[in-house]
């Protein structure tokens, strides 16, 4: 899972939660790699996955799709998926797609872990 030019990902366990922190952009070329990270987070059988998007300047629909997939896994396996730290542009993608009410979206990583 070598990092590509556009995306760097960190993953850490915080209590029963797994925090995934991607940095850069999640667009067409990075979505495949990001999907693998989200699967890895899922495989850790957490009670909660927090995706801290503070470091994501840009996301388009291939990126959003990976998060919708992750949400479907979360629902099926009854754990929470929380998205934190979206910038205005990323948030507006979720709004246009009417996904802002489907996802649990909070301001900060701290809020997501509370």
């Amino acid at each position: 899972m070598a990092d590509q030019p556009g995306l760097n990902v960190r993953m850490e366990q915080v209590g029963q939660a797994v925090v995934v922190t991607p940095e850069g952009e999640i667009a067409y070329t990075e979505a495949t790699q990001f999907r693998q990270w989200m699967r890895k987070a899922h495989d850790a059988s957490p009670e909660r996955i927090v995706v801290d998007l503070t470091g994501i300047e840009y996301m388009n629909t291939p990126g959003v799709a990976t998060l919708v997939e992750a949400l479907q896994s979360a629902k099926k396996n009854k754990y929470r998926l929380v998205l934190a730290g979206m910038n205005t542009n990323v948030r507006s993608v979720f709004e246009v797609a009417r996904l802002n009410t489907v996802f649990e979206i909070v301001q900060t990583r701290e809020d997501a872990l509370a």
Partner: protein
Amino acid sequence: MNESERREAMRRGPLHGPDLTLNMRSDPRFLTGARGLIASVAEKIGLSSTSCAQVALAIDEALCNVIRHGYKKRSDAPIWVMVWVLADEGVGAGLRIVIEDEAEQVDPSKIRGRDLADVRPGGLGVHIIREVMDVAEYEMRSPVGMRLTLVKYDRPSPGVEPAAVGA
């Protein structure tokens, strides 16, 4: 000019050639650069930062779709991106962007996103393109391929509401 004539005029665009043409292979490695190029031009001609971000997103979604759906992920097929800077004509700065490919032709009415109430991973790109642009029209290109015409004004011209156009 009534509303439909005005929309048609926006779609048709200026008579002169494009100010900028990017002819790229359908290689995903060129997507970030293409998007950045358009965003930079949008910024330099004075579009608001929100509009710049929206145009960049729309171009990126449209190019992703050409690569994935049009060319079935072939990375060596041609894509043309033509850009016209629309002078201020009482409606603020604007850009007209035409994207053409040589992919298989599809009925433009088949190019549409999923029902937004039915939450699934895909089917969002076309919604976004239509929502953020003032004009987004697909058509078959002659003799092969598809053409997408996009227009974005900073302020919508009177009588052309983006919501109405994009619906």
